[in-house]
């Protein structure tokens, strides 16, 4: 018994082509095979699709000669050479940039070093200048050998009073305190 012929529309043609290409799911493929079995018109459509597709095999095989390969390789080499040249040209510019950056970093580092050394040196100088009156009379104070007497002299302002010094600059041992 023959079933009604389905219209060979775009949807069916999609399925037929996918069937010929082996791209249908098994279930869909079985459905197409059923249609082919039942409808000669569908068979004819598939035959025509296949025949026209097979004709593409008649197109001539493309031949490529050795010269073509050689010229392509030469083209690639020329391109590579050009790339390398442009890289080499860019290199001095890049190197110059690096040198400038290095000089800048070194300059900043030198400035910072000088600033730190300068501040340390100044602090030491300031400390020595503050202690100068004491240093100038150190020998005389050592001859006194009596701390209470010295304290009395300080109270009577006969000995210069030194301002309080930072801990770092205080002598570890006071020669007067030993006596």
């Amino acid at each position, binding site marked *: 018994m023959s079933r009604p012929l389905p219209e060979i529309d775009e949807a069916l043609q999609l399925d037929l082509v*996918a069937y010929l290409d082996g791209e249908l799911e098994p279930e869909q493929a079985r459905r197409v095979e059923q249609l082919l079995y039942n409808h000669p018109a569908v068979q004819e459509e598939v035959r025509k699709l296949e025949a026209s597709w097979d004709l593409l095999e008649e197109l001539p095989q493309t031949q490529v000669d050795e010269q073509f390969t050689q010229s392509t390789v030469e083209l690639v080499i020329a391109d590579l050479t050009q790339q390398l040249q442009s890289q080499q040209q860019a290199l001095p510019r890049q190197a110059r940039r690096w040198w400038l950056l290095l000089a800048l970093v070194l300059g900043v580092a030198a400035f910072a070093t000088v600033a730190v050394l300068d501040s340390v040196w100044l602090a030491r100088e300031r400390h020595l200048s503050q202690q100068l009156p004491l240093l100038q009379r150190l020998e005389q104070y050592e001859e006194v050998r009596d701390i209470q007497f010295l304290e009395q002299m300080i109270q009577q302002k006969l000995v210069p009073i030194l301002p309080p010094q930072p801990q770092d600059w205080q002598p570890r041992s006071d020669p007067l305190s030993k006596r």
Partner: protein
Amino acid sequence: MLQVRDDDAAAFEELMLRYQHRVLRVLEHLSPSRSEAEDLTQEVFLRVFRARKSYTPDSKFSTWLFTIVHRVASNARRNQARRREAPLPATPSGELAGGGMEQLVQATTGSMPSRVMAKVEMRQIVRAALTHLNPRQRMAVLLNKFEGMSYADIAETMGVSVSAVRSLLSRARVTLKDVLEPYLDQGRPPRSHNGSGTWASQ
């Protein structure tokens, strides 16, 4: 390709020898002339070499290669459209010439022995039939027919969905069937198509 990626020049030459005729065959049917197809083939391999470092063996090499072919062909088509050059039909060697398809077949086969003539005529007709497809359909047909690519691989190559490929191929095959039917049934050449074998027709 992995050797090419590692700057092996001999491997690149070997790769070219293996694939250049396949690339040229596809581009020949997408270009207005053989010389144009050769130029584009060279450009493809130049791009392959330039992109060698970015190649990863995640997908098939042929898919990667024909993705480049597809891009090069698309760019050439766009450039051609911009230049708006006057289209000319193709000769047997793929070179440009004047005249319609039927006249061309007659001119080409007029002085040949009948068997050779039939073969040449058939090639001309099939070539002309391909010009009835739009460029995307033609690309899908060439990849499917000559490269044996699956729908999924064609989709990856052309940057479209699998269902789009299915649709492209279905329409292309129906068009080819319709165009070639008179030839298959009665041996008559198909009707001429404007601008056969040119970028402008795509």
